[in-house]
Structure formats: structure tokens, C-alpha cells
């Protein structure tokens, strides 16, 4: 350890992170729409976690005697063509949507941010390879890329997440790369370099905390998009396998009975719309609170 390193010890960024969280929760609570949206998201998460307790029926339990039963006291949102309870399946479907969305965002954010930071910090070959990969992946419209991947990989929970994340990371890569480039040019990074801190430490403890807010906001705004993509793929039959209740495949099931039973498609779609809307509202609010530079006019 050099004298300078002893004089300027590594600062922990816990206080700053705490400040962000505080400001965020206070800010979300301060405005009714943001608060409502946040509450809706919390309710969905709770429903997903406690699905077996909340759902009135088993999601796969068929009751052929009451096929396509309209909404009633026994089945609040009716039953589908196999007599399965739509409400219970919708509640279980929350799990798939949230899991796929969160895991995809998680993987895409982690990989994209890491590669983007490395590319911007070290430049050279890492940066070159990243840039070419991004260019190639950007040539495909997202949904078409995912559909093609799933067509060749086959339906499956993890296949779906990989297919989505394989293209999803590039947005975070570009974001993190640009942000890191602008941070690296600042004095505090120069100072840390002069003192002799290792690159890994500079990236993780100096640069990352400074770009984290922007990355978090974009991750939140992407979450809803990934959920819609998942539902779209499941709707087409190339996403989640039919054995798992998912909103997209439920909507697809309902399509065949649309003329006799409106509820089968409508309910899971409404569930998805409300969740995605709430997530987007929370995301926009987060953007206003955490990242004034990204604020829309």
C-alpha cells in the first residue's frame, strides 16, 4: 500500500446507495400515481410468491363438467376449454412473467454492463469485439431474433431466457460503455489511477456506483418490455411450454374460444397489461428521481 493509498482510504459507497434508496421510496410515495403503480407491482410479486395460498384452485385441475363456464361465484373469472379456473391460472402465470422478466433483465444488465465497462475502460480488442457483436445483433428486430432462436432451440423456460438475454444485453452494453467513457475522463478516476489503485477496484468502486442509477432506470424500463416479449413468444407457442401456466399461452388458448368465452383471453391479457403499465410507471418515476439527465421534456 502506498502512502497515498493510506492517506486516501477506499471509501465505501453504502451511504450513497442508501441515499438513493431513501430518495426513491420517498419520491415514489410522494406522488399518487407512482405510489399506486409501486403498490400494484408489490401485489403482483406477493401473488406470485403466495400463488398456492391465494389461488382458489390448482392451475392444472380440470373440471370437464364446467368447461367454458362464465364468471361466477365459484369461478370469478370463469373457466377455460378444459374447465380449468382462469383466475388460478392467471395468478400462477404471474410467476412465469415475473421470473422470466427479472431473470432476463438480470442477465442482460449484468453481462451488458460488465462488457460495456470493460470495453470503455480498456478499449482495444475487447471494445472491438463488443462493437462488432452489437452491430450484428442489432441487425435483427428483437421479436424476430427471439422467435428464430426459439424455433431452433425449442420451447423451454431457460431457452426462452437465453434467447431474450442473448440480444437484451446490447442495450446495457451501449449504455454502460458510453457512461463509463464519460466517467473515465473525469478527475476522480484519474486521481485513483495516479494513486495506483488497481483497475478492477476503480471499475467496481469508482465507476460502477456512478453509472448504477442510469443502468437501474433502464433495467426497470426494459423489464416490462421483456415480459411482453415473453408473452408474445408463448402466445405463438414458441415460449413457455404448455405444461406451465403462462399468460401468453393462456391468451392463445382463449383465441380458439373467443366467440363463446371472452374471459379466457381477456383476463390474462389484462393482468399482463396492468403489470407492465405499473412497471413502466414506476420506471418513469425512477427516471425522474434518479437520473435528471434522462428526463423527457
Amino acid at each position, binding site marked *: 500500500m502506498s502512502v497515498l493509498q493510506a492517506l486516501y482510504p477506499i471509501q465505501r459507497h453504502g451511504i450513497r446507495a442508501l441515499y438513493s434508496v431513501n430518495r426513491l421510496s420517498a419520491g415514489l410515495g410522494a406522488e399518487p400515481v407512482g405510489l399506486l403503480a409501486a403498490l400494484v407491482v408489490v401485489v403482483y410479486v406477493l401473488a406470485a410468491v403466495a400463488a398456492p395460498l391465494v389461488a382458489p384452485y390448482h392451475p392444472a385441475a380440470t373440471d370437464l363438467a364446467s368447461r367454458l363456464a362464465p364468471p361466477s361465484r365459484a369461478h370469478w373469472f370463469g373457466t377455460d376449454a378444459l374447465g380449468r379456473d382462469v383466475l388460478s391460472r392467471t395468478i400462477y402465470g404471474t410467476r412465469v412473467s415475473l421470473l422470466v422478466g427479472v431473470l432476463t433483465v438480470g442477465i442482460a444488465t449484468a453481462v451488458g454492463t460488465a462488457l460495456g465497462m470493460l470495453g470503455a475502460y480498456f478499449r482495444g480488442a475487447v471494445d472491438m469485439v463488443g462493437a*462488432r457483436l452489437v*452491430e*450484428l445483433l*442489432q*441487425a*435483427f*428486430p*428483437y*421479436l*424476430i431474433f427471439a*422467435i*428464430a*432462436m426459439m*424455433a*431452433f*432451440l*425449442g420451447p423451454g423456460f431457460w431457452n426462452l431466457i437465453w434467447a431474450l438475454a442473448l440480444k437484451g444485453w446490447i442495450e446495457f452494453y451501449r449504455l454502460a460503455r458510453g457512461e463509463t467513457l464519460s466517467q473515465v475522463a473525469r478527475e476522480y478516476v484519474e486521481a485513483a489511477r495516479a494513486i495506483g489503485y488497481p483497475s478492477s477496484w476503480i471499475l467496481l468502486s469508482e465507476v460502477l456506483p456512478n453509472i448504477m442509477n442510469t443502468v437501474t432506470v433502464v433495467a426497470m424500463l426494459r423489464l*416490462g418490455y421483456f415480459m*411482453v416479449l415473453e*408473452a*408474445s413468444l408463448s*402466445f*405463438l*407457442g*414458441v415460449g413457455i411450454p404448455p405444461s406451465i401456466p403462462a399468460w*401468453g399461452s393462456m*391468451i392463445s388458448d*382463449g*383465441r380458439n374460444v*373467443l*366467440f363463446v368465452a*371472452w374471459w379466457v*383471453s*381477456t383476463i390474462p*391479457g389484462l393482468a*399482463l*397489461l396492468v403489470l*407492465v*403499465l405499473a412497471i*413502466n*410507471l414506476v420506471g*418513469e418515476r425512477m427516471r425522474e428521481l434518479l437520473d435528471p439527465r434522462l428526463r*423527457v*421534456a
Partner: protein
Amino acid sequence: MRPLRILQRVLLAIPVALGVAVLAFFSLHLLPGDPVQIMLGDTNTSAAQIRAMQHELHLDQPLTTQLALFFGQLAHGNLGTSIVQQRPVSTMIAEALPATIELTAAALVIAVLIAIPLGLLSAVKPRSWIDRVVLSTSLLGASMPAFWFGLLLILVFAVDFRVLPTSGQIDATIALQPVTGFTIVDSIITHNGAALWSALRHVLMPALTLGAVFAAVLARTVRSSMLDAMGKQYVTTARAKGVSETAVVVKHALRNALIPAVTVAGLQVGELLGGNMIVETVFSWPGLGRLVVNAIFAKDYVVVQAAVMLYAITYVAANLVVDVAYTVLDPQLELR
């Protein structure tokens, strides 16, 4: 300066297009197992048949030879032969393409007709009730899964009111002489009023479904770029000169605000192309998207490979056009 810039941009697109083709080539090798066996299914096919098909697809050759043969075929416009339909894939795509273009064009028209007036109104009176309605509707539109919106439209207009057809491009009972392959264009050329009416009724719901999300994004862009333009000095100058408010908004501000709107429209082309697959499936629209989705279920991977490649190349080309248009439209770009 400008022609050079455009040339540079065009040249940069070439390696990307080649990369897309290479990825498309390798997609068959992603299949878990032997592509031929998967495509032929579990039906009792003899080993000789499998070998013949492997030979036809050049799968018995070394990988580098396969790649060279693939590019050789591409250069001749040969996209392979469909295993299910035993027809050239290029013919199948050419048959499906007009329907997709017609749907996309109709969706674009609807989106622009909705988005520009709404974005304009909400920018002229920011924070008014109309602004709030436009902003919240556009957020709703952007959060909505397109396929579900399509089903809602069917529920309302086909199930409840029974006023619009739910599938296809035209009534099966109407005879239309094909000229260009575009249903609406053909019915106008051949002065076939009944066909035109039927075609327009058929395209309305799918185009509205496809255009809705696009309109949501576009309205927001028009709004924010209009707000931006309305604050500029040339607007103040125009007002000071005594130009009427309508003329200020339409002639001065809107013209300038449309440049960023065009860019956003270009960036959304990918969403439109992807949305096509969904909407065509919902409304059984006989276009490229449905061709791909059907091919996926028929395990006709040669068709999937070719169509995805075509989608990507179209997307690259569209982005290129937007970039070039932007260079031409925005004189400031040269100064940067």
C-alpha cells in the same frame, strides 16, 4: 462531405448483412440433433432418404464447403427448397411479401393519422386535460401486448357488433384478378369496388393492431419534439411578425419537429416487422410472418432460415435509409 458520409454508411452495412447471412447459415446447426431427422419427423423414413436429403442440403460436406455453397446459392437468389411444400423458398416468400407490405403500409398510415394530430394537440396545450389523456393513452398503448389488443378488437367488432371480418385479406367469394399481388392496389387497378371494400374491411383491424403501439411511441415523440420546437426563437419571431397561431404551429414548428419524429419512426421499423408476425398470426393474414410461424410448427427450417435472414436484411436496409434521410434532412449534422 455528404455523399462521402452516405457512401461510408452504405459500406458499413455490408459486413453486417454478411454477418446476418452467416448467422442464418449456422442457425440450422443450432437444432438439437440432426436437422434432417428433425425436419423429416418421426415418420418412417429410410436411411437412404435421410442421406439424400443431407446431400441436398449439403450437410454431408465439410462446414467450410457448406458455407461456400450457401453463399453461392444466395448470390443466385436461391434460398433453398421448402421441405414441406417442395417449392423454392424464394417463390413462397415472393407470394407472401405483398400482403405483409400492404399490412405494414396500412399500419403506418393509421399510426401517422393518429399520432401526429394527437402529439400536436398535446404539445400546443401542455399540461391540459388533452395532454394528460394523450400521455396516459400513449403509455397504455406502449405497455399493451399487440396480440391481446387484436383479440379485444375482434371481440368488439366481430363478436359483439359483427361488422368486421376476423381473418384473411379478402372475402373468399370475391374474385379479384391479380395484377401486382397487392390486394388493395389490384382492386383499384381493375376497378373492382366490391373487392376494394372487402379488402379495406379486412385490413382495418390488423392494421389498427399493428399501428397502435407504433402510434403510441410516435405521439410521444411528436409531442416532445413539438414542445422543443415551440420554444425556439424562430417561433417567437414568427409570432412577433404577426403570423397566425395555426401557421406558426403547422408551418414553422411542425416542419422542424418532424425530423426527430422521422428518426423515431425509423427506429421503430424493427418493432413493426416483429409485430407483423404476431398480428398476421392473430388475423390469419397470408403474409411473411404467418409463413414463418407456420414453418416453425411444420419444422420447415429452411423457410425459417431464409425468412429471418430477409427480415434482418430489410431491417438493416430500413435503418440505412433512415440514416441517409437524416443526413439529407438535417443540415446541422454537417456542422457537427
